[in-house]
């Protein structure tokens, strides 16, 4: 178990290297001059541009800059913003809690809505609940998230006037509800679908039949045998979905003016502030990788039969 965790952690290194390389190449396709002047939105004199380029190492060849970037990143240094010269790490870390709060609440909503819906739909296949769950599942995956957000705004902020339209509200719970719902509902639909499929698969397994033959109560069978075995698949999906969810926060944050990494990323892209964009991307991807690692480790607790050797 310990060895497995260490090995998975070591696998991080090539993945992170590959990802930073891809991001670096992409973002450095923007010529330095253009990036600088767009970032500053100023007509700079050539001497100033030269000096800035020197300060920001833009006069060095790309591979040198990549090497410097990665070695500094390894020490936790994400560079300095082109635009306001602040420390990228600092600004990214200030924005991180808001994003994590939003993403975790949305995931919680997705799990609390999706898993029970899928579970009961599978137990009562063909019932009205099953039909309802299927409709919700396909509809929830197909609805454009930000459109759903706009509609929720209309209902809760405009018609009923019970929730604020947007903003962080200094972390007030009431401000979290709508963004989290907007982000979470689509994922609840996906989870409901996976849960239903997983439970149906487990229901036809031999050990379920054995348990029934043993005369166990159906509640006991459903919880101890069916749900526990279905959890492996549900957990994998949750891990994968979380990554996509972290990505989608970008759009939801933008819609609700939520001060997280996502809105910072979009702002920095519009301003061509490459170090900030790079920092946001790296942090989002690291979160995704860490979540997947946690999921792998959690497997072991749920199903000790999984052998990693």
């Amino acid at each position, binding site marked *: 178990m310990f060895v497995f965790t260490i090995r998975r952690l070591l696998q991080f290194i090539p*993945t992170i290297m590959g*990802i930073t390389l891809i991001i670096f190449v*992409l973002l450095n396709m923007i010529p330095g001059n253009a990036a600088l002047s767009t970032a500053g939105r100023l007509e700079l004199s050539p001497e100033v541009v030269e000096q800035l380029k020197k300060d920001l190492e833009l006069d060095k060849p790309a591979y040198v800059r990549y090497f410097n970037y990665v070695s500094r990143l390894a020490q936790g240094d994400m560079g300095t913003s082109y635009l306001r010269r602040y420390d990228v790490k600092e600004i990214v870390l200030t924005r991180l809690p808001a994003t994590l709060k939003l993403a975790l609440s949305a995931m919680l909503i997705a799990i609390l809505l999706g898993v029970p819906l899928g579970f009961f739909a599978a137990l009562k296949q063909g019932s009205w609940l099953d039909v309802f769950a299927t409709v919700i599942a396909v*509809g929830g995956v*197909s609805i454009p998230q930000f*459109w759903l957000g706009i509609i929720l705004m209309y209902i809760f902020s405009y018609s009923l006037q019970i929730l604020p339209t947007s903003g962080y509200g200094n972390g007030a719970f009431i401000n979290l509800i709508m963004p989290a719902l907007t982000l979470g509902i689509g994922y609840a639909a996906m989870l409901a679908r996976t849960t239903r499929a997983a439970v149906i698969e487990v229901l036809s397994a031999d050990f379920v039949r054995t348990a029934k033959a043993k005369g166990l109560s159906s509640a006991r069978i459903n919880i101890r045998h069916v749900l526990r075995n279905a959890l492996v698949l549900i957990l994998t999906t949750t891990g994968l979905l979380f990554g996509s969810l972290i990505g989608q926060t*970008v759009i939801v944050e933008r819609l609700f003016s939520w001060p997280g990494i996502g809105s910072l*990323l*979009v702002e920095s892209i519009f301003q*061509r502030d490459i170090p900030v964009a790079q920092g946001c991307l790296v942090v989002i991807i690291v979160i995704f990788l860490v979540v997947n690692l946690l999921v792998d480790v959690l497997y072991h607790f749920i199903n000790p039969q999984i052998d990693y050797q």
Partner: protein
Amino acid sequence: MLNIHKIISQKNLLIGGSIVFLAIGVAVFAPFIATFDPITDADLMLSEMPPDDSFIFGTDPQGRDVFSRVVYGARVSLSVGIVTQVINTFIGVSLGLVAGYMGSRWDDAIMGLTNIMLSIPVVVFALAIMAALGPGLFNIYIALGLTNWAYSCRITRAQVLSVKNSDYVKAAKVLGYSHFSIMFSQILPNVLGPVLVIATLGAAEAILMEAALSFLGLGAQPPTPSWGGMLASARELFFIAPWMSIFPGLAIFITVLGLNLFGDGLRDYLDPRNVLKSKD
């Protein structure tokens, strides 16, 4: 072989297929369906009119007909779905064929790349590409076309591995066929079904993604009518002119729903395990 009874018994395939067919029809025949020109028929006297007999979806702040813009918007969305999936499928299938068929170092390198692709959320990756290329519809094609090929690559590779040592592939080798022709004539046909399913579902995802990127202001630039772009410009006016948001949003929802249903139905149709079901 197409099995008509099986198609009819698959409600998903039938409903999804009809929606997709309808959406394609709207896109192709947009000039005949639209009641106004989506760009030039602007009249500030008719700004932000609620839906009525002549403007069935209302008008926008420039006095353009929302219905006509939604009709033309189908072209942008469907083109995104088709172009991105052609690129994704081409990259995924080619790399998957090479990885599975050539094996060893090729396989390691391609699978390594695939795993990296899978560890970056598509929105984030697409945003990074858009950051480099700048906004615009053409760049959206590139951004979404380059980022979502990992699944078709994986499935192609798996399929290649399962038929690589089959007798007919061995026979083709003995007969002296080149690697290239074995890959394309013997192995590729086995992969088409699953890849088609992935591409259909991928098209649905790409349309949602294009709408989201347009919503962030990175998509087709005004005055081009695109559903995501219309929603972006309608956002501030939602409480005053909700029709500007409702109809483009519904158009995205219905189109994506159709593609998802069609993709699911196709998967069930092609799944060999369902052959048994349809026989009884």
